[in-house]
């Protein structure tokens, strides 16, 4: 297990180098320069280029960038004439300034304290109860730590002041809300459809899920825009569609539209997984023992049906956090996806790289976490043999 984790962590390095190198080279080979739109004299342009380091050879620029990136300095945003750094736009803190403690450092600090406290409690408990360590770690410590961390993270994300935090916050809120919508709608509907298999309810739900699965959030967002305009026209109301600084309430509609497709995917998966489990012998045994159907389905069925769903959840979370590009463009939400597209359109190199690497790292680490969690939830999977790649 430990070897597997180290192996997977090492795999992050080539991905990081590959992603940054390809993005860097491609971004710099886009014809034109970030300064072409300005009317500048030749000498002034040279001066500005020198101040951003754009006159150095490309490989030098790359190494300087990577070095600074590691230090948390992701460079100035060209689009905003260098008045804001990339980290300021994305996370709301200045990369090079150390006077006030950056947000992420506070976060790490609080997380560390949480982990220590929970681990300490676990140790005491283990002494009292005399439980074996591995069993304790698996059954109690790990879930507690994970749940506490996620609860804390979600709390921070939804209470942070949007005027201080950057675009990443909007994307996180959007992604988390869409994820919640996916779970709350997808799983119950899947279970219902499976329990009432081949009834009209099942057919209706599966058809809706198929339709939902077929329409991407980008198009769904456009349809919602049209609907809002028509409603405003007919009822004389004035719903705003794209406020400049969206509140959490403004994000609900985009989040639902973003999560609708994922909810359909989860509902379909839950249904097929439940159906698979219901056919198993131990379900029949439980029924034969005289347990009522509902209890058999929820108590014995859901637990086992949940394994294939779990494997997909992390993948979906990564998809929702990075897939909000389109919905952010449609609703003009200033999240990373929004900056990501506009930075490419105006050749804001540091911004292109910053958003890309952020996205790539999100995908890589969420996938890593999912693979590890999968091993935890499904003991049949063993990473020791090195078969998983």
């Amino acid at each position, binding site marked *: 297990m430990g070897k597997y984790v180290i192996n997977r962590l090492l795999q992050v390095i080539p991905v990081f180098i*590959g992603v940054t190198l390809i993005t860097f080279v491609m971004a710099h080979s886009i014809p034109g320069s970030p300064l072409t739109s300005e009317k500048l004299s030749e000498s002034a342009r040279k001066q500005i280029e020198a101040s951003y380091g754009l006159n150095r050879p490309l490989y030098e620029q790359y190494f300087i960038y990577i070095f600074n990136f590691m230090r948390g300095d992701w460079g100035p945003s060209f689009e905003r004439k260098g008045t804001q750094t990339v980290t300021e736009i994305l996370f709301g803190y200045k990369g090079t300034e150390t006077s006030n403690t950056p947000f992420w450092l506070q976060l790490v600090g609080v997380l560390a304290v949480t982990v220590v406290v929970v681990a300490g409690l676990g140790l005491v408990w283990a002494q009292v109860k005399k439980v074996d360590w591995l069993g304790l770690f698996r059954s109690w410590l790990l879930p507690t730590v994970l749940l506490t961390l996620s609860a804390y993270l979600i709390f921070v994300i939804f209470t942070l002041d949007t005027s201080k935090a950057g675009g990443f916050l909007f994307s996180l809120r959007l992604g988390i809300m869409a994820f919640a919508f996916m779970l709350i709608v997808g799983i119950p509907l899947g279970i219902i459809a499976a329990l009432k298999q081949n009834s009209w309810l099942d057919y209706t739900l599966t058809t809706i899920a198929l339709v939902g699965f077929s*329409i991407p959030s980008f*198009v769904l967002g456009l349809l919602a825009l049209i609907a809002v305009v028509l409603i405003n026209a007919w009822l004389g109301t004035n719903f705003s569609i794209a406020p400049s600084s969206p509140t959490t309430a403004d994000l609900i509609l985009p989040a639902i539209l973003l999560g609708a497709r994922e909810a359909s995917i989860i509902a379909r998966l839950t249904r097929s997984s439940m159906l698979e489990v219901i056919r198993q012998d131990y379900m029949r045994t439980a029924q034969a023992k005289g347990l009522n159907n509902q209890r058999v389905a929820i108590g014995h069925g859901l637990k086992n049906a949940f394994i294939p769903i779990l494997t*997909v959840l992390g993948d979906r979370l990564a998809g929702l956090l*990075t897939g909000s590009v*389109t919905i952010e463009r449609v609703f003009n939400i200033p999240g990373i996806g929004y900056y*990501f597209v506009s930075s490419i*359109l105006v050749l804001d190199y540091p911004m292109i790289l910053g958003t890309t690497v952020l996205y*790539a790292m999100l995908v890589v680490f969420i996938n890593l976490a999912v693979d590890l969690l999968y091993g935890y939830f499904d003991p049949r999977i063993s990473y020791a043999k090195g078969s998983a790649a």
Partner: protein
Amino acid sequence: MAKSTKERTDQADLPGAAAEAARTLQALSNKKSSSLWGDAWKRLRRNKLAMLGLIVMALLILMAIFAPWIARYETDQNFYDRNSPRPYSEQNYQPPSADHWMGTTGQNYDLWARVVYGSRISLSVGLIVQAIVLLIGLPLGLIAGYFGGWFDIIIMRITDIFRAFPYLLLALLFLSIFGSSIAWVYVAIAISTWPVMTRLVRGQILGLKNKEFVEAARAVGVTTPRILIKHILPNILGPIIVAVSFGVPEAIIIEAFLGYIGVSGDPAAPSWGRLISEGREAFQSNPPTILLFPTLMVVLTVMSLNFVGDGLRDALDPKQTNGRK
């Protein structure tokens, strides 16, 4: 949980003779039924939504092929009427009428004509992108899966890198470098979607390459290319067809979004995405038709293709669940 694990291992560890008998039984029952593809077609025909999707797709393809006869006007025919008493600004974005079934765009072009010609772009994007994806993904997946070792490691690390790129980034960068002509759009979308195919093919082959029939072929001295093409490829064709049928609508959606942010295709011969973007800019003060109709066309196309894909999966690949993208 422990219960289920035990249950499954019990099934797998059936005593040799019983397992042999079960396999023989299965072989017999397989023989009785008609061919795999015939069965699949029968199952597909029973799926009403999939058949509906097929019919709609056939109509859309006909529309794309016979666009000049269906469009009624040229796409660059300007309907600004100089003699009309109404000023230029009022003639923009005409609502639907008998003359202009979907109204007109901001530059007084007939929207129906543009939508009809736009279908050529969207459909060709869907098909050609998947052709390129197959061309890249299939051989790489075959090599990685069948030969393993260093081939596998290198190819898989490359797909890891490509998969870590955020959605659309490669396509966007690619089009920014090479310009937005439609040929580059095909390549750009294919480049950002091929790893899925490679991983699918590789996974399928890993499950197959140690099966008895492949070992038998190897034992009697069949050459490697022949094993790959004659023995392995037919067995993984089902999942590949399903993946392609879901890849086509995905490519269409990506193209629509690229058009929407204005980096794909020629504004003079707009794709549906370009029309949508024009509609998005104008829709708050004008009739929403220019936003509505191209969007509906995208929905119609993508939905029917997905219905077909879903039907194909049920027909060809009943065991697979819709997990990863």
